[in-house]
């Protein structure tokens, strides 16, 4: 049987884009935010990011090895999880905390549910929330000697806005990222560059981020201050841009239907608005996203597209 030929069902061509190249694009899109965080917070930020990524990749590798499953670390999805998790950490965090988060993200949230594509919550965000609950003090410490804020009153712009003060930081400062916050969320500029890269390279569609931001803007306008500057301030501070471009668009945990993506974006905007305006803590992006993750199957069920030629039937 020397002349066995390759046969398979059509089609016989495959697009060049594969899971790995998509993940690589997401990593590239996070480079500006990563670079800015190292510039802004110092080399310790790089250490946090590298060790968190390593923790995620190692967790995935060891788990799959122990469970005798195919090793999937080469698809780079664990790297993406590690980066998102690390960029969600406050700058002064002891490095073992995000590393523990990485183990939780990969093993509890991702692998226990069947690995890539099967988790119902964004692993990085679920881990962040796990850490927020477990280490509330350390996770909410945004003081940083390096950038010259008073170590005792290092309040984030969002926390200031909560008290009605939106003048301590200028919008330009917020845009560039010269503010306290988590590693990756501070520079709106870097995040927008990454977001545009993802949209231009067609890695993500603008449907979820734009619906999310627009809904939140409307919500903040109605329930917050009725001023344009306030809306811009709210959008540029906290994790909403990072969340909208990099976390809400996570393929696995967002709706696959087009209409569903709009619904999902609206839900995210509403929940973020509720948490930020009426919640106990100033930030609400992470909770809004993981809560919305849980609604995805329901959203999909009611937003199935009408098949071609079956419109109106």
């Amino acid at each position: 049987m020397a002349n066995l030929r390759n046969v398979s069902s059509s089609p016989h061509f495959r697009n060049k884009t594969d899971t790995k190249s998509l993940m690589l694009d997401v990593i590239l899109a996070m480079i500006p935010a990563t670079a800015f965080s190292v510039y802004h917070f110092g080399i310790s930020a790089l250490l946090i990011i590298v060790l968190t990524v390593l923790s995620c990749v190692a967790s995935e590798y060891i788990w799959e090895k122990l469970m005798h499953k195919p090793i999937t670390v080469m698809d780079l999805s664990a790297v993406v999880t590690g980066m998102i998790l690390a960029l969600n950490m406050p700058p002064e965090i002891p490095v073992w905390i995000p590393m523990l988060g990485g183990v939780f993200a990969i093993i509890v949230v991702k692998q226990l549910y069947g690995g890539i594509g099967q988790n119902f919550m964004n692993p990085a965000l679920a881990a962040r929330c796990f850490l927020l609950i477990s280490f509330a003090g350390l996770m909410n410490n945004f003081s940083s000697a390096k950038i010259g804020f008073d170590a005792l009153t290092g309040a984030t712009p969002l926390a200031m806005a909560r008290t009605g003060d939106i003048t301590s930081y200028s919008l330009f400062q917020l845009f560039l990222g010269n503010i306290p916050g988590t590693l990756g969320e501070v520079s709106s500029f870097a995040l927008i560059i990454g977001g545009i890269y993802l949209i231009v390279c067609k890695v993500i569609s603008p449907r979820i981020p734009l619906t999310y931001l627009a809904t939140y803007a409307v919500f903040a306008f109605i329930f917050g201050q009725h001023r344009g500057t306030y809306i811009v301030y709210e959008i540029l501070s906290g994790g909403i841009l990072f969340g909208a471009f990099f976390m809400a668009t996570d393929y696995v945990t967002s709706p696959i239907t087009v209409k569903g993506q709009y619904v999902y974006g609206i839900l995210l905007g509403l929940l973020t608005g509720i948490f930020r305006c009426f919640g106990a803590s100033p930030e609400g992006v992470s909770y809004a996203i993981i809560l919305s993750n849980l609604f995805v199957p329901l959203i999909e069920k009611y937003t199935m597209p009408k098949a071609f030629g079956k419109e109106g039937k």
Partner: protein
Amino acid sequence: MSLSTFKGGTHPYEGKELSEDKAIRELSFDGDYVFPMSQGIGAPAKPVVNVGDHVLAGQKIAEAGGFVSANVISSVSGTVKIIQPRMTTGGVAVNSVVVTSDGLFETIEGIGTERDWTCLDKETIVGIIKDAGIVGIGGAGFPTHVKLMPKNPDAIEFFIANGSECEPMLTSDYRLMLEEGEKIVEGLKICMSMFPQAKGIIGIENNKPKAIEHMKELCAHEPNIEVKELLTKYPEGGERQLINACTGRFINSSMLPADAGCIVDNVATLAAIYDAVALSTPLMQKVITVSGDAVKETANVKVRLGSSYKRILDEVGGLKEGIEDAGKYLCGGPMMGQALFDLDVPVTKPSSAICAFIHDEVSENPTTACIRCGRCVDVCPEFLVPALMQKAAAKHDLEKFEELNGMECMECGSCSYICPARRPLTQSFKEMRKLVAAQRKIKAEERKLREQQAAAAAAAAKEAEEKKEDNK
């Protein structure tokens, strides 16, 4: 001018440049010609010749085996060698008439005789097309005479000539439009003469500017025919997508184009109609493309039906030097063509190409887990959700598959092409669609049986009642 198109779809590597400048040349050779009794949709034909009979080119060797079925015509002169199941491109053996060519290509009397079709009535034209064994030679293989007999001919508003040739690598329709465009226009006019209300549209993708220009020139004095420039996108030439792009109308899987006032025929089919009606020549030859990165010489060749693919590839020049065997051979193009494990299979009416590739992209890209990226949803021209359909397919959940409109899938392959996890989406849908169709058939038969039993029981009860009455 905005280009007409449909929503969804994808744009794979076109590969047209490999063979688009190769003029059509005729290719005939001696040896055996194999004519499968089933060459497209419908019931298999029934052989009307016996082993040992001498046949001529153009002679009917098998008769349509039902309403939706087509005659089979010998493309060569020679002797019937055997009638037996032979391997076909689909990978199944089909009962076939094998004719050993005498190398003379003698034709039956009257072939090539010009006929003035303008004085023929509709029934005669359809009769000629039926006798000529013409089916949709663009790929589907649906008997053309059946298509030309819709329930309500006056409701046909558009007669669409499909010149989109959206399948990558294929250039046979392109060459035909350039070299035999007159035949296509005449064929279209013959068809339109049967539908007084119909307007003619020739749809061509805009990656074929020369063909568009040429067809426009030919139609310059045909006020009732419009050449429509379509956006180059796969599957622009899918029947439902083409109707949508040309007229804005939608049909689903349970509708016929005629329900939307349309009839669609491939340009090659229209040329065959012209040959049959105006030149008294039945369907004996077909232009096919020889292409792919593994072939030495690409070509567009007019071959006789029943020719072996292997022989065609050899005659054209075979594989590039240094390549012992191609990574994959295809009958047809890369999006909807069939992989061949045996090249010694015959060219049939819907055949369009033989492609040979150095690499097999399918086996070189192993399947990984679905990441729900939604690309399949974006490209699906039928607006389905392939990712969820495959979940149903993996569980063999026929009900769920139907609920997700799986039966609307046209198996175009766009989802499998775009999938970053290289999942065999289309493949699983093909299987599920067959299962659902089979189950529907079983259910219909069960219903029929139940109705018969109920009717029988009712009749028996009535009889018993009557007997009782009588006894009283």
